């Protein structure tokens, strides 16, 4: 029982074209910037948007294969948690959860019993009779999850399930969602623009930009070896493309410059290193095998306990330094500096 999909949807000038495979019990995250086509993909899987071409199938069941077959949403074994949850305001939490069971023909008493069980599972025993408006964001999210899971769907679709929560609830609900997804035996697709949600909840990341897959793989691999600037930015790495010969990488014209790496390599490569690996010096440090080049300060931003410094140069680079360093160097925009990175801090991998 594996979900296979080739999603092709044309919407005016925008074209979504991505392949998706989800194994039972697997959580795949679709990660990408706004407007990348994530929600379009989710709507196509749910049957709320027909495919232009391609196919969607769970095992040997065909859900959508234009122009011949199309199964409407109410006949697909799916559960969807929408971004704003879309709980029915006129029904109690219990009736919201029981709605799918009732719609699929479960007798009332049995549907209510199973809805009660689901509400206990998500820890909302005390809120059975509450209307959605009376629930907090986190509680509403849990009702939405219970409602989606109550019908034992084969495919669970989560559209930015944590986006509507405030930061403090989010950490808690994310962990809880992870637990429920771990217990869920079906296929899960999580759509999100938050890399943290994706990294924590998913087994497999699919990153989309402009309607196409730019990179996919296990979260750890994606985090270590980003392949596009967008992914590098998500996982917080400096990323360059270049051509390697032995331990020297000549970077592409876009960034310019050369870097020295520890392990010999050949051919077109990506090189990546964390901003924390960059040190800044007022003068050329001289006489070491490290990478060192002239830069000027383009911007300074405070992040929790570090300061991120944006530097222009060949190549341009991001550096994370301590507030103490900022004070010591008296960093100001336009100031000339030297950036250094140890060769051993740089990860190199073929493009």
């Amino acid at each position: 029982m594996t979900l296979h999909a080739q999603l092709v949807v044309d919407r005016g000038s925008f074209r979504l074209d991505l392949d998706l495979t989800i194994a039972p019990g697997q959580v795949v995250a679709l990660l990408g910037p706004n407007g990348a086509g994530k929600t379009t993909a989710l709507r196509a899987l749910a049957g709320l948007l027909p495919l232009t071409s391609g196919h969607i199938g769970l095992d040997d069941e065909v859900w959508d294969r234009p122009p011949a077959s199309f199964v409407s949403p109410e006949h697909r074994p799916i559960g969807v948690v929408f971004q704003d949850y879309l709980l029915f305001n006129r029904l109690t939490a219990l009736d919201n959860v029981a709605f799918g069971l009732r719609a699929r023909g479960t007798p009332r008493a049995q549907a209510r019993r199973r809805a009660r069980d689901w509400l206990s599972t998500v820890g909302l025993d005390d809120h059975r009779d509450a209307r959605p408006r009376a629930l907090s964001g986190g509680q509403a999210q849990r009702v939405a999850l219970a409602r989606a899971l109550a019908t034992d769907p084969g495919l669970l679709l989560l559209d930015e399930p944590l986006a509507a929560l405030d930061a403090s609830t989010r950490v808690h609900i994310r962990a809880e969602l992870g637990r429920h997804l771990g217990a869920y035996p079906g296929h899960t697709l999580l759509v999100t623009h938050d890399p943290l949600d994706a990294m924590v909840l998913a087994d497999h990341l699919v990153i989309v930009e402009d309607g196409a897959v730019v990179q996919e793989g296990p979260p750890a691999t994606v985090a270590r070896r980003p392949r596009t600037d967008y992914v590098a930015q998500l996982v917080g790495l400096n990323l360059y493309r270049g051509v390697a010969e032995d331990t020297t990488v000549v970077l592409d014209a876009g960034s310019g410059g050369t870097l020295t790496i520890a392990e010999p390599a050949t051919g077109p490569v990506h090189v990546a290193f964390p901003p924390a690996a960059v040190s800044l010096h007022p003068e050329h440090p001289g006489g070491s095998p490290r990478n060192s080049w002239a830069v000027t300060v383009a911007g300074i931003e405070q992040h929790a306990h570090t300061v991120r410094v944006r530097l222009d140069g060949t190549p341009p680079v991001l550096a994370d330094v301590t507030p103490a360093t900022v004070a010591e160097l008296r960093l100001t925009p336009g100031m000339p500096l030297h950036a250094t990175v140890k060769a051993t801090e740089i990860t190199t991998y073929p493009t």
Partner: protein
Amino acid sequence: MTTRARARRGRLPVVLALPALVGLAFLVVPLAGLLVRAPWSTLGEQLFSGEVGQALTLSLVCASLATLVCLALGVPLAWLLARGDLPGRGVLRALVTVPLVLPPVVGGVALLLVLGRRGIVGQYLDQWFGISLPFTTAGVVLAEAFVAMPFLVISVEGALRGADVRYEEAAATLGASRWLTFRRVTLPSIAPGVVAGTVLCWARALGEFGATITFAGNFPGRTTTMPLAVYLALETDPGAAIVLSIVLLLLSVTVLVSLRDRWIATPT
């Protein structure tokens, strides 16, 4: 700031204030006149007298039946206009609203041409089923429904367009058919619009005159509704006409009060 606002309010230009007052008087004085000239002493007596009581009962029954017809046909029609993927939806919507601006007499004539005993549809109703609609109570209901239905359709369609379609999508992903979704999700969310449309539709049906007298004629006890009775009584028994008018006025005010939140509330 307050002082300036007050000062500005004090300087209402006469060119506007004078016609405004005349306009207000024009609308209110006739209604007041009705109350002044009412035969208050014999009001109760007249109200339950044969003719007035008969017209009142007939009016209430016919307007209510017409409203039921409008609900049964108009709500699905509104749904079709708001949600259906139809080509030429704009043209359809325009057609539906024609009875709003059409002189009701023309509506009555049109109904006669189609449903009359020699009418395009009416002749078959007569031949095959022995049903003849003109000049019957059923005819009154039809004439009223014809004129009043657009009020309901427009009100319900507006509510449907304002309702969030995503809730219907959520219901579909939970396995609900479109009919179940309509009953359990859409209809509850547009209930205020349906209620407003129903009240408006009922009020319009109750006041219907032109189409009714043309299509259903004037037969006391069968087709003489209140507006018809008012018109006829004016010649023979002005006192009864005033009583009937006051009843209609009261019903209209009741309708307005019941809709005050939607129609008279200051827009915010």
